[in-house]
């Protein structure tokens, strides 16, 4: 399937405007598989799984991958700009407002932000707990997660060192069942 880049830009801009709350993969699925039928469900799931092993946000990676697949390099650039531009512009406006209005401690903007921060931590806690039910399904999974939490969260090792110590062990753990 080959899609011209202006069409891709429009479609991914729509996702960029509407994908609130971090569930970016679900929004891309709706666009590419359900609404437009550009890829089959299986192709999409494989692409999403592969984009997980790359660095960076899966949402942006997946958009760049899908765009490139459907429209070459121009398509990839258009898709990435599409998903980033709306949020980045809004974020810039909010940040400018923050640095001009909201930095005084005790101002109402600061109080509102404290409330948002607490809710945002709650959001990540809920997401993590949801995933933990599926992700921590065996003793080796728990051991791996615990190792990462202790070295990174508690001992503040640099992230590259944490990954260098955990990823080879993890691959060895899952080697046998990945035939």
């Amino acid at each position: 399937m080959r899609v011209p880049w202006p069409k891709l830009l429009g479609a991914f801009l729509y996702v960029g405007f509407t994908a609130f709350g971090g569930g970016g993969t679900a929004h891309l699925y709706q666009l590419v598989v359900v609404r437009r039928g550009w890829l089959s469900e299986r192709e999409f799931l494989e692409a999403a799984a592969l984009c997980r092993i790359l660095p960076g946000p899966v949402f942006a990676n997946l958009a760049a991958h899908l765009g490139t697949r459907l429209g070459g390099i121009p398509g990839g650039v258009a898709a990435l700009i599409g998903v980033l531009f709306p949020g980045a512009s809004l974020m810039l406006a909010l940040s400018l407002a923050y640095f001009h209005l909201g930095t005084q401690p005790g101002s109402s903007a600061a109080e509102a932000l404290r409330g948002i921060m607490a809710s945002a931590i709650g959001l990540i806690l809920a997401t993590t707990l949801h995933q933990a039910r599926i992700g921590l399904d065996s003793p080796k999974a728990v051991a791996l997660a615990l190792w990462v939490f202790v070295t990174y969260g508690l001992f503040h090792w640099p992230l590259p060192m944490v990954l260098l110590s955990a990823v080879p062990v993890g691959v060895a753990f899952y080697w046998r069942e990945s035939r």
Partner: protein
Amino acid sequence: MREELEIFLTFFRLGLISFGGGMANLPEMARVLTARGWVTPREFADGFALGQFVPGPNMLAVVFYGLKAGGLGGTLAALLGMFLPGATGAALLVHVREWMARARWSRALRRALVPIGMGLSFSVLLTLIQMGLDSLGSLLLVGLSAFLIYRGKGILPVLLAGAVLGLLLPGV
């Protein structure tokens, strides 16, 4: 230009090592950005909170950090640095995806990254709690929000309710 280059390289390094999902590198980012004096811990937490409000990847908080570090040029440098490594890799993936999908090491890696990602998420939570929470009331609000979202309530209404509660109960 030197300043923008320094910002770009800092975020490029952070983008390059941010394996395991969008926010896995948050604790590392907090350490690096506060050590360079680009943001205070309070500003880091506030920028993260604002990032939850915009559509798109959560990591758009880098717009906030780039702006503080180097104005509009810094914003662009931070955005490019954070998103280019993964996006370039994702575009290249188009050519090797069939081989990758079959390769045994890539299947093992994808499985291993699930629990590793969980460990990273718990580390992110710890960092955010240390930087962003300073009272028992906030802690209760964290619990309440987590409960509501876990039960399937909408994310945006819960965040807005958090803002209203923060306004109504200052200093909580």
